[in-house]
């Protein structure tokens, strides 16, 4: 870390007092940002200065800051989670920026994600999709024997890949149609690939897709910007699987 440099940055940040208020882009000048700091630490530095001046600090979502919780968001220079591939905002470091850069920071934008304050949006819609999926049948009683349910290596791998989704909604944010298909398809794939939860397989995909549409997300146009912005590298072949699962489900179920 001996290459630390200090950056002076021009920030353009979306400020909005509350859900019902009108927001605007506000310019800030921030000096002395270490190239070793993370993007969120840079915002912490800004907030410390704002608090010292008696201003309202910029509200943004964050939690683990280790790239696994899915809380951090931010549209950085027009890209979800910034320019780095498979990197969450918290794992993006200021060494990726140059001295004197102007950085535009905005909240996720979608009809289904109302802005709560500044850079924070309500991503509860994704929870609603998950909830619509319902429960998964499991046998109760004694703890099952190890390897009682055999799962093929490939299925296990694919299910794990889909399960890597942290629900950050970068897919929705980066999609020009604000479609939540990558998220929903990852959740559907994860369970469709495993022997557990086969009982509800068809009803699950119908319910989740129905909820996704009802919440006002857009329609997929197969541009793959979601896959490109996904910090967990979720593949759009999951969307194809969801398309397949859905058409199978609506032709099979009797409900």
């Amino acid at each position, binding site marked *: 870390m001996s290459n630390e440099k200090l950056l002076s940055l021009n920030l353009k940040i979306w400020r909005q007092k509350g859900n019902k208020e009108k927001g605007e882009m506000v310019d800030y000048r921030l000096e002395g940002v270490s190239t070793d700091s993370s993007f969120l630490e840079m915002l912490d530095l800004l907030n410390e200065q704002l608090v010292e001046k008696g201003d309202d600090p910029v509200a943004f979502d964050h939690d683990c800051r280790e790239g696994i919780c899915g809380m951090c968001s931010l*549209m950085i220079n027009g890209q979800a989670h910034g320019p780095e591939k498979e990197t969450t905002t918290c794992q993006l470091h200021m060494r990726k920026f140059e001295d004197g850069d102007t950085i*535009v920071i905005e909240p996720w934008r979608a009809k289904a994600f109302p802005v709560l304050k500044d850079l924070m949006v309500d991503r509860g819609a994704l929870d609603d999709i998950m909830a619509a999926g319902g429960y998964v049948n499991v046998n109760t009683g004694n703890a099952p024997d190890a390897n009682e349910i055999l799962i093929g290596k490939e299925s296990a791998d694919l299910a794990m890949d889909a399960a890597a989704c942290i629900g950050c909604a970068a897919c929705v944010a980066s999609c*020009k149609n604000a479609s939540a298909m990558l998220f929903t398809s990852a959740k559907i794939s994860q369970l469709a690939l495993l022997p557990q939860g086969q009982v509800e397989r068809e009803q699950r995909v119908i319910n989740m*897709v129905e909820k996704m549409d009802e919440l006002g*997300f857009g*329609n997929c146009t197969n541009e793959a910007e*979601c896959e490109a912005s996904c910090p967990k590298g979720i593949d759009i*072949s999951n969307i194809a699987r969801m398309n397949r699962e*859905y058409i199978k489900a609506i032709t099979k179920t009797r409900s």
Partner: protein
Amino acid sequence: MVTRLWLYLNSSIVKKQIMGFTGLFWCIFLTGHLAGNSLLFIGPEAFNTYAYKLTSNKALFYTAEFVLLFFFISHLAMAMKLTIENKIARPDGYYMKQATGRGSTFASSTMPYTGLIILVFVITHLLHFRFGPVYMITHSGVEMRDVYRVLVEYFQSPLAVGWYIFCIAAVGVHTSHGLWSAFQSLGFSHPRYTPAVSCISKIYGAIIFLGFSALAIFCYLQGGN
């Protein structure tokens, strides 16, 4: 039951599957159209006889036209519905939005625009040829429409050739994304063939562009004869 069916038809997934299915149908039509029209290279008799055979069974011909129109309008209406819905899904736009460079392509991001060019093109195309001038000619004792002459006359204007090539470029770009996209929407995705489908889609777009452009230029060059 009916409301259930209506709900399924209105789901985001079935809507894009309708786009994919109708689009795929038109891709198949385009292949046949290009193959058939390539008879232009052989000569007036081969081409006119082909056109005559294609249209002489009136019942079949009108049915085919109806089906083509039905698929075209379904594709168009669904595209408009989806585009409007997608705009509504993000009422407040971004101050700054940049593509990642790892996802969308020129073809994928211009689908609505190339689609609009194709709409205008198809209308003018039908007016120029399907409903264009009727000349009669006799080949091997059978009197038929001299479509060859209609084409050659139309393409005598370099402006007509230019406009045609521009529109065919839009068709090529549109299908180069559309063909792959249809497979994805219909759920056909597998590591064994998806990379091939993606590649074939681009080659298909290029063949459509080069093939039809060559026909237009060929007609232009027949001017002296």
